[in-house]
């Protein structure tokens, strides 16, 4: 072994290359606090490795980005790696902040280390940009809205702003090129820039050796430690020999590695348990309130105080001035005595950190007290969970993930109902949950077609309530009077029998609707359904007015054949005045939403929208099994660990 290492050293000089670490001596001994730099470097390497691995399966375009990220999430390893990549980006930003504070406190920016300080500071905003350029790559709702807003902020810069915005977004609107451009930034340009600065930064650390604090306090002869240093360090090491405990390796190294292990352990635990977020696929038609990441919250809050033409003060002038102040800080601080410098630095730190925490906290407080924002973000989370459930179910069509929610009755139904129906109809359960029309003037359609809903319509009291015909002209009509007649002048015992019969009729009619969620119940209730059908056309004489199968005629009342079925509802909403429903002037104000079958584009609802609305009214949508596939997979992962 030794002879091999000698052989290797003779050819590579690796011992000399490693000398800055192997020979480094810390006269004041190792410190836990010195670990920030090493920890940053290791997390940076973790980002490079996990990022590189994610590139194996990621595909940047509006049709593939979300789908490929969801694909990555399907495997335990992919889920974990993406989680580590996501949470390490946050950890890097926090640690960058801690590192800057530590360097500031140690006055480690003093001559001749100004360039070390400046390159470090320049890396900080680059890291932030690097992080936010990664968010939209998943093609998710919040990431894409963020980059659009950030694009407009850049665009508001005088002169060059609009040009940079156009290049960043790849045109006027977010699309394929936005993702490829951000990808270029995220995996190409920014890594090169940051790695370049980082190498220079580390080179400077080696060149200048130890800072004042590391030497054990202010020294008169700083230059002793900042002379051309490689040979110097070795010389310092060999003659005279320092006490071994003061060596950087392994005494500082073991501290560094412990800190890195703890930090990475925390990141891995969060990544394994929660994974990186994946929002619903970006879609401008979905409701969403964008918010910046936590590290930009202070600027987001600041922008509130500079409105209109003054906005650029918050978005450009102040951040630029703060960065400039810090870059120039070593020059400003140079002539100060240690005591004045300490006051100087403490003040900067207090004001800086205080302002940052204050603005950030204020921004979050504002949101936590904003019921509308909270509702909107809960809605975004619900949409996101829904999109993931749908994507877990089957592979995507070539048009991509945007179709998941656009073709989902559960998502689109309420939006369509709110836009087209809710001015008259409510859609709310018994406790009032759901959509309540401000002035209901038509039946509440929650549970339409179920036996419970039909039972209510066949009840002499409830049919005239506002949930059914109460606010329509039918409240004076034949249906209401016939139902009332059924109960006219009969004994309580007979009335109870009548209620039971009507329940059977409701069951029979609900079976006509063939609701997917009632399939099992319908199947188990064949006998009552048959009895209900007989009552309908027999003793209760519904077919005097209504058509039901081969009994009765069309024209005087809605057809009860296939009542509430998909096809029946498509027809009813399409054109209620059709003779199958409320022919001619029997119809009470309900518009025809798809009357023109020849020219669907002239209708209020397109065939697609009409289908989505009907499926939603009938509760006909996919629901995932109670333990979803990713939950099972995650459990398996945890068990495996």
């Amino acid at each position: 072994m030794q002879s091999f290492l000698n052989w290797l050293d003779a050819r590579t000089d690796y011992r000399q290359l490693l000398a800055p670490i192997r020979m480094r001596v810390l006269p004041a001994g190792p410190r836990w606090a010195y670990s920030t730099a090493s920890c940053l470097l290791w997390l940076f390497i973790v980002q490079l490795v996990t990022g590189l691995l994610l590139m194996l399966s990621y595909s940047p375009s509006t049709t593939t980005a979300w789908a490929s990220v969801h694909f990555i999430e399907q495997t335990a390893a992919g889920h974990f790696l993406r989680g580590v990549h996501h949470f390490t980006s946050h950890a890097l930003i926090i640690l960058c902040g801690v590192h800057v504070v530590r360097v500031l406190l140690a006055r480690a920016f003093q001559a001749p280390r100004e360039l070390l300080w400046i390159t470090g500071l320049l890396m900080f905003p680059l890291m932030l940009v690097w992080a936010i350029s990664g968010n939209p790559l998943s093609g998710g709702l919040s990431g894409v809205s963020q980059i659009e807003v950030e694009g407009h902020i850049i665009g508001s810069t005088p002169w060059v702003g609009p040009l940079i915005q156009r290049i960043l977004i790849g045109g006027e609107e977010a699309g394929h090129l936005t993702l490829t451009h951000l990808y270029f930034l995220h995996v190409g340009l920014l890594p090169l820039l940051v790695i370049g600065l980082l190498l220079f930064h580390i080179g400077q650390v080696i060149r200048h050796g130890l800072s004042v604090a590391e030497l054990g306090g202010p020294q008169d002869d700083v230059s002793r430690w900042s002379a051309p240093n490689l040979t110097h360090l070795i010389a310092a090491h060999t003659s005279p020999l320092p006490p071994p405990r003061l060596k950087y390796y392994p005494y500082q190294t073991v501290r560094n590695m412990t800190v890195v292990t703890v930090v990475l352990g925390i990141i891995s635990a969060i990544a394994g348990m929660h994974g990186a977020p994946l929002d619903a696929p970006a879609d401008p038609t979905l409701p969403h309130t964008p918010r910046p990441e936590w590290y930009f919250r202070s600027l987001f809050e600041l922008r509130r105080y500079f409105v209109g033409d003054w906005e650029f003060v918050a978005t450009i002038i102040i951040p630029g001035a703060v960065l400039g102040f810090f870059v120039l800080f070593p020059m400003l601080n140079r002539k100060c005595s240690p005591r004045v410098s300490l006051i100087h630095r403490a003040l900067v730190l207090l004001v800086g950190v205080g302002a940052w925490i204050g603005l950030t906290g204020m921004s979050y407080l504002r949101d936590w007290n904003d019921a509308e924002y909270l509702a909107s973000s809960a809605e975004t989370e619900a949409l996101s969970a829904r999109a993931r459930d749908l994507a877990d179910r089957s592979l995507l069509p070539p048009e991509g993930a945007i179709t998941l929610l656009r073709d989902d009755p559960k998502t689109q139904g309420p939006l369509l109902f709110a836009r087209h129906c809710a001015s008259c109809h409510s859609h709310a359960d018994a406790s009032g949950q759901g959509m309540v029309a401000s002035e209901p003037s038509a039946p509440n359609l929650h549970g339409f077609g179920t036996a419970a809903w039909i039972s209510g319509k066949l009840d002499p009291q409830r049919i005239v309530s506002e949930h059914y015909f109460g606010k329509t002209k039918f409240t004076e009509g034949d249906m209401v009077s016939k139902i009332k007649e059924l109960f006219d002048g009969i004994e309580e015992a007979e009335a109870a029998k009548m209620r039971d019969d009507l329940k059977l009729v409701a069951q029979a009619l609900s079976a006509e609707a063939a609701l997917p969620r009632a399939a099992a119940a319908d199947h188990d209730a064949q006998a009552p359904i048959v009895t209900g059908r007989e009552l309908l056309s027999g003793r209760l004489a519904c077919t005097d007015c209504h058509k039901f199968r081969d009994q009765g005629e069309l024209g005087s009342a809605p057809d009860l054949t296939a009542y509430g079925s998909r096809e029946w509802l498509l027809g009813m909403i399409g054109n209620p005045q059709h003779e199958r429903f409320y022919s001619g002037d029997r119809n009470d104000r309900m518009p025809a939403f798809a009357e023109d079958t020849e020219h669907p584009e002239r209708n209020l609802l397109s065939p697609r929208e009409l289908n989505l609305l009907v499926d939603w009214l009938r509760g006909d949508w996919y629901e995932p099994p109670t333990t979803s596939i990713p939950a099972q997979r995650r459990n398996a992962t945890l068990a495996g660990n």
Partner: protein
Amino acid sequence: MSQPHLDLHQTPSGEPRRGFMTHILAAGIGLLVGAVPAVSGLAFFLDPLMRKKKDGSGDGFLKMPVSLEALEVNGEPQLVKIIMNKVDAWNTYLNQPVGAVYLRRADKETIVAFNSRCPHLGCAVDYKPSEKHYFCPCHTSTFGVDGVKQNEIPPRDLDALEVQIRNGGEVWLKFQNFRATTPEKIPVG
């Protein structure tokens, strides 16, 4: 633990024993930190090897767009495109051409089908009516009309596929691809 690699770090004066333990600790923690991303990274990298192709529904037979009667007894092979749903990572593409087969009616009752992929390196073979053989343009493999290889370039004969005649004249075929370059027929996927 073997001694030699520690020698490197020892100063001539010798270090206290705690120094030795600290070396081990530093190296051990370093390995641990590296292992977690390395293992998950390797698993992610090897994902294509672990991913199993999902079985399609049914018996795997497809109805061909030609009937038994449409093919001449002992006539020339006919090239038929295979149209199936294609699964590509996260997408399903409906009704895509996924390959092609040569169908030939060997006698009144029998249809012989060959996958058009050359068993050598997977190029598509052409049927040359003038030569009465299949010819691969990539490396000049040739096969007789019965699929038997006629030179030593391909490792095996053309890959025959299972065919069934159903309902008195419908041609149903089980489409499969096989691994190239091997003397045996090994199904892919």
